[in-house]
């Protein structure tokens, strides 16, 4: 017996297995980042003083725009596959990966600047939580980029043999990528603006 509902949805739930799977995984990620946001709140409320204007807001704003743009290119890559346009898929997915690199590059400059002037995690609970939250987020970005690169490169061969299954995979990868964007949408104001 084959495992059912990998490509066609189960009638009563209306879902394919991977769709439910990724949403459940994202639910666990909400709790993971939620715990870090909770830690942020407790540390800040318990702190005697909390630094302001020590982070590069313009740079992070650019990064926010970068991730938002990568989110639309990601969903467009899936939409292209739904419209059977593999070439467009490659362009949009490639753009998504490129924008990921831009995000990482900007983060690299941000981090190195802080480290150079001694603003390291051990300096204060502010920098501790800043590096930890953005660092964990960054690891998630890297993970997503690895998956996306696989689907842009060797994994894209599946389009020729099982196009529907491949399209589902891109949708699932997209859900993960949008979630990474979503976390940043909250991280950015909390760490940089408040």
């Amino acid at each position, binding site marked *: 017996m084959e495992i059912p509902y990998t490509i066609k949805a189960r009638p009563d739930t209306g879902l394919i297995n991977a769709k439910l799977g990724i949403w459940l995984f994202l639910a666990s990620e909400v709790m993971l980042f939620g715990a870090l946001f909770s830690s942020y709140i407790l540390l800040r409320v318990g702190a005697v003083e909390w630094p302001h204007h020590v982070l590069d807001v313009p740079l992070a704003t650019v990064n926010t725009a970068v991730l938002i743009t990568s989110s639309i290119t990601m969903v467009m890559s899936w939409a292209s596959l739904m419209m059977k346009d593999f070439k467009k898929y490659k362009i949009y997915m490639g753009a998504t990966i490129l924008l990921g690199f831009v995000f990482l590059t900007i983060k690299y400059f941000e981090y190195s600047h802080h480290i150079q002037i001694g603003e390291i995690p051990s300096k204060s609970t502010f920098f501790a939580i800043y590096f*930890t939250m953005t660092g964990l987020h960054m690891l998630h970005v890297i993970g997503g980029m690895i998956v996306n690169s696989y689907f842009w490169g060797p994994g894209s061969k599946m389009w020729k043999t099982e196009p529907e299954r491949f399209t589902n995979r891109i949708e699932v990868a997209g859900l993960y990528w949008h979630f990474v964007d979503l976390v940043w949408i909250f991280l950015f104001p909390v760490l940089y603006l408040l």
Partner: protein
Amino acid sequence: MEGNHSHDHELGFWRKYVFSQDHKVIGIQYGFTSLLFLLFGFTLMMVMRWQLAYPGQPIPIIGSWLGDDRAPQGIMLPEFYNQLGAMHGTIMVFLGIVPLAVGAFGNYVMPLQIGAPDMAFPKLNMMSYWVYFMGGVTMLTSFVMPGGAANSGWTSYPPLSDIATIGQTVWLIGMVFLITSSLLGSVNFIVTIVQLRAKGLTFMRLPFFVWAQFVTSFLLLLAFPPLEAAGVLQLMDRLAGTSFFLPSGLVVTGQPLNVSGGGSPLLWQHLFWFLAHPEVYVLILPAMGIVAEVIANNTRKPLWGYKSMVYAAIFLGFMSFIVWAHHMFMTGMGTIISTFFQTTTMIISIPSIIILTALFISLWGGSIRFTTPMLFALAFLPMFGIGGLTGLPLGLSATDIPLHDTYYVIGHFHYVVAPGTIFALFAGIYYWFPKLTGRKMNETLGRIHFFGSFVCMNAIFMPMFIVGLAGVSRRLWDGGAQYAHAQPVLHWNEFMSHGAWALGVFQLFFIFNLFWSIRKGKKVEENYWHATTLEWATPTPPPHGNFLTAPEVFRPPYEYSVPGAKRDFTPQNQRMEA
């Protein structure tokens, strides 16, 4: 993620037995690995109990093997006792019970009981096992680190754990592996139960065992991530010099710590217990699931109150997320928040009582078969009852004051987990053994195992209430010998230790029975127990893909002694009479 290869021809040895994607092979892998860890964790405790019975005496036989940094001249150092304590708890909970209850039983039985060919994500399932294995190896290697294994309790409270020896860092890394394994597994379980149920198998026709695994998986999915976050924060404290959990002004052996301070030890406690409370329901729910199956089968009648049990299990799962700070009553919390947690804790006892009561009432009017699995399942009921009832004074803040961190607590939770969950797991092994092997385990050896274990469990854990009520704290390397208030109850230590060592002897009957019966056990017919649930409708042992044709379900799960039926059981996949 992938449709499975159903007609896989010759898989090599490694793909078939080691890196298998078949849930049954993975379930057996989890089973043997977790049983080994249970044995190891039990051994740690047997060594601890020597020190508690005879503080300062050289440990016989193995004392000389331990080396001077653990037991110079065979006499256990307090530092080593602390390692044994922390690792006993960690190994039993995270490497033993949960992998056995969920990884082994859940993996093997659940897909069969829902009529599925395998788990929804077989590759992910395989990865879950191997990540668990890596976590286990990591935990074990902590023993050989300089300074030994983790020694700040299984609860790893900072500031102590922040400044503890390297073994603590290894513990944290091990936990990251184990939590990852758990998360992957819980996604798999939930998707499998939702998506791969056979035709006609509605949610309210699921065996209670499957409901228990379903709720358990949600607990693991949503409660573990905060501990993962906390683990990352503690790793940052230990490796990157941060002060997430280090308050300002901390002085260690006369020297102020050179850190930024500003952190909160209570932050760790909140994040830890946010997981660790739901974790105890992870420990008990699969056990209740197994007991339900065994009782229904051995009373030859349907479970009483199936619907109530299901709703109770769901309510229990939900409530388990909002009681955690009853572990923190002594941290200076105010009356409002304390009242909140006391209230939710009292409320959460209700669903447990409903489930236990329904199981008790299920016995009424039954035609009871006192098979070995049934003996363990029956004993579970009062043992879990004692465990649950003794939790009540702990859940009320005022009565918790004299009891917190005493042996009373240890007695309470061991009653629930040891003659509670572990008995249920034994019941499950004896019960499903014929499914895996086509043979039965020896009944005489099973009875010796049962009666011996039952007596010894009570001998070990009942006195703990006495010792705890006298005020003896837990985690004392000499069992309280230096305290005046402990003197009247100290003699119990020796008694409990002998109970523990005797318990060890009785497990030998089980270990021998298990391995001997695999080869030489009496061969039995298909569906030896005459059970109604779907796992018994496959060949024995079930082939890859489980069912020869996709099963269809027409009935509720416990159609035993249906009036007018030919036999005293009617399988779920038996069509209704025309």
